[in-house]
């Protein structure tokens, strides 16, 4: 933000001081909102096209050249749709819920370093701020479910709250490993700590396990398949946003998709070395290449989400919670120990091998312990 403040002063010194400051604050916000809203619109289009192709049909191809204006068409449709509020609903809370869903999703964007030197607000507690704000969405889920005064949304809300709360813990613990490695909370310094050829944290054993845990928890946090329980269409109609229509429903969708992007952004920042990549330090177009690296990696995360959504069925509630508490949580604790072992090892190779072995043993042990419900191979006899 202060870099932009200097920039403004160089180009037009005549501008009064408070205007420059205001501009320095508002400009990055405008950029971030603009970029990520177009990314959101693009994401809905990519998802529908990709799911279509997976399912042997062409995705939307009517509106715009290859269906590119489909998100705009959806937006306009939802804008003009009538906004029905059930009369038994709790008006105030019913109105506040979609707002509270969207706000945390966008606030987290403040600490995601999009490119070299391009970060909205360089807080030195970046990651902690991101995780703290993303827990606020729990309240929004409950408000939506409770205010709609509808049994299905109540069930959806309870599932959503349980899911987000129980996946919060392993997520934070998986993030702890990265903080230990980079020594600071600020997202820019985390990215800088991953320089070097195999510098990305994902290349380290504990980094890989941390990445997998963080990615699973992010999918659960944002309720994407296979964890999309809060709005499981086939069971509880549309979960907590059953009673929403018109633009409030659009806000819910926007909140969900933008949260998916921001969680992807944080995963990229922490594990895949944010905007780092060969060529991101060039003087002239360094920042442009680093931006491309960042969005490329974000694309990989989004593709994984869509791919999983097109293939896997949904997990049941008790299995979902069991998976979080009985497997992800202990695994992330062991991951922290493995990180410590790697850190204090005499040299890199020994540390690498030791933590890898420790993690492998931990994973196998945990899988064995939780193998309560084995899947038996079924044999079928054929009567003549």
């Amino acid at each position: 933000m202060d870099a932009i403040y200097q920039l403004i002063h160089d180009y037009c010194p005549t501008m009064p001081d408070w205007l420059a400051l205001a501009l320095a604050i508002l400009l990055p916000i405008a950029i971030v909102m603009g970029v990520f809203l177009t990314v959101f619109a693009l994401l809905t289009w990519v998802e529908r096209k990709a799911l279509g192709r997976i399912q042997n049909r062409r995705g939307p191809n009517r509106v715009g050249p290859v269906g590119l204006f489909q998100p705009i068409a959806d937006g306009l449709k939802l804008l003009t749709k009538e906004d029905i509020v059930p009369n038994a609903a709790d008006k105030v809370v019913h109105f506040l819920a979609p707002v509270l869903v969207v706000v945390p999703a966008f606030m987290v964007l403040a600490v995601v370093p999009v490119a070299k030197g391009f970060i909205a607000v360089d807080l030195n507690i970046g990651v902690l701020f991101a995780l703290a704000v993303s827990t606020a969405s729990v309240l929004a889920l409950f408000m939506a479910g409770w205010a709609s005064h509808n049994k299905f949304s109540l069930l959806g809300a309870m599932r959503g709250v349980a899911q987000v709360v129980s996946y919060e813990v392993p997520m934070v613990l998986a993030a702890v490993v990265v903080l230990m490695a980079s020594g600071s909370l600020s997202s820019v310094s985390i990215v800088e700590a991953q320089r070097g050829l195999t510098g990305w944290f994902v290349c380290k054993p504990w980094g890989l396990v941390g990445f997998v845990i963080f990615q699973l928890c992010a999918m659960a946090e944002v309720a994407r398949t296979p964890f999309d329980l809060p709005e499981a269409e086939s069971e509880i109609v549309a979960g907590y946003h059953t009673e929403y229509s018109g633009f409030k429903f659009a806000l819910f969708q926007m909140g969900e998709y933008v949260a998916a992007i921001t969680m992807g952004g944080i995963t990229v920042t922490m594990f895949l070395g944010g905007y780092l990549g060969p060529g991101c330090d060039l003087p002239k177009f360094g920042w442009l290449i680093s931006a491309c690296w960042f969005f490329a990696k974000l694309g990989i995360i989004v593709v994984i989400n869509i791919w999983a959504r097109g293939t896997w069925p949904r997990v049941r509630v008790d299995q979902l919670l069991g998976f979080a508490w009985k497997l992800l949580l202990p695994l992330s604790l062991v991951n922290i120990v493995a990180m410590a072992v790697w850190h204090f090892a005499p040299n890199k190779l020994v540390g690498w091998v030791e933590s890898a072995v420790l993690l492998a043993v931990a994973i196998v042990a945990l899988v064995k312990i939780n193998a309560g419900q084995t899947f038996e191979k079924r044999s079928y006899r054929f009567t003549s």
Partner: protein
Amino acid sequence: MSNLLGKGMIDGLVVTAKNFVTSYFDGNRKDRLFTYQYPEERMKLPENSRTFPFLVYDGTPDQMRCTACKVCETECPPQCIYIVMERDANGKPLLRPRVFDIDISVCMQCGICAEVCPTNAIKMDCDFERSAHGRFETLLSHLPELLKSNDYYHQIKSAEATRVDATRKPVKKAAAPAPVKPMPTPADILTEDERSAWQRGCQSEIGTGPIVWPPPVVVKKKVAGTNTEQNVSAAPLPTGTPWHDSGIDIAARMELAKDRSLADKLMAAMAQLDCQACGYDCRGYADALASGTNSDFTLCTPGEEETKNMLEKLLKEAGKL
């Protein structure tokens, strides 16, 4: 639950990935991306495909094959066809339908009318774009819209059309060639009473009290001195014909007409449909056969074999043949 990230899920991902990638290479093959982009890209319908029925005419719309024998009207399961026989001034049937309505909102496209039609007059079309603005008047297709030429029939169903043409022997029109009347315009085609008569007949309202079937033929007569017309329904059939119900089979009908005059026995042998395929209604044809004015006993097409043999037996007994 614990080994959630096992092999099975990876296999699933591989299958969807393969589908995703190959859809870009052989996307235009119909067995891969099987959706047709409808208005631009149309699916070629196979020849047998059937939607709504239409009436076939040879040459000019006036030479339509339909003889208004009403077999399709009786056989149609949802009862969505309504036919009124055309009569000249003094009420003689002209073997042509004056009114032939099909309510396509009721028709379920089962094709039974085309199957049972003795004169191959009604066939199944394959044009499915029949949307309309209203739910009642516009979905009721009248005679002019239904008429389509035999060449159109050849065009949409060539194999079937040629087969039909081969089997069709030139149908001898019993009645004298009717003077060519201008096609009735829709305005005066369905008067008020005929519409309600049609609705009674067509709406197949189950058990709405005794349905007089077929609906009484209404002949308009000017009331002297006033310009209003008074509906005089044609004389209802003599009540003394208990066998006059197509539901009873021929043995039972002959049983009922056992000790009756030759004309009554001949009438009992008919198919009781008053379909006028023979040029008269059942009563008229039986009287014609009894009085010898008409000696051809094979005109009762809906009666098929059993009626023809019975008529032949009766005429032989009576020594007419």
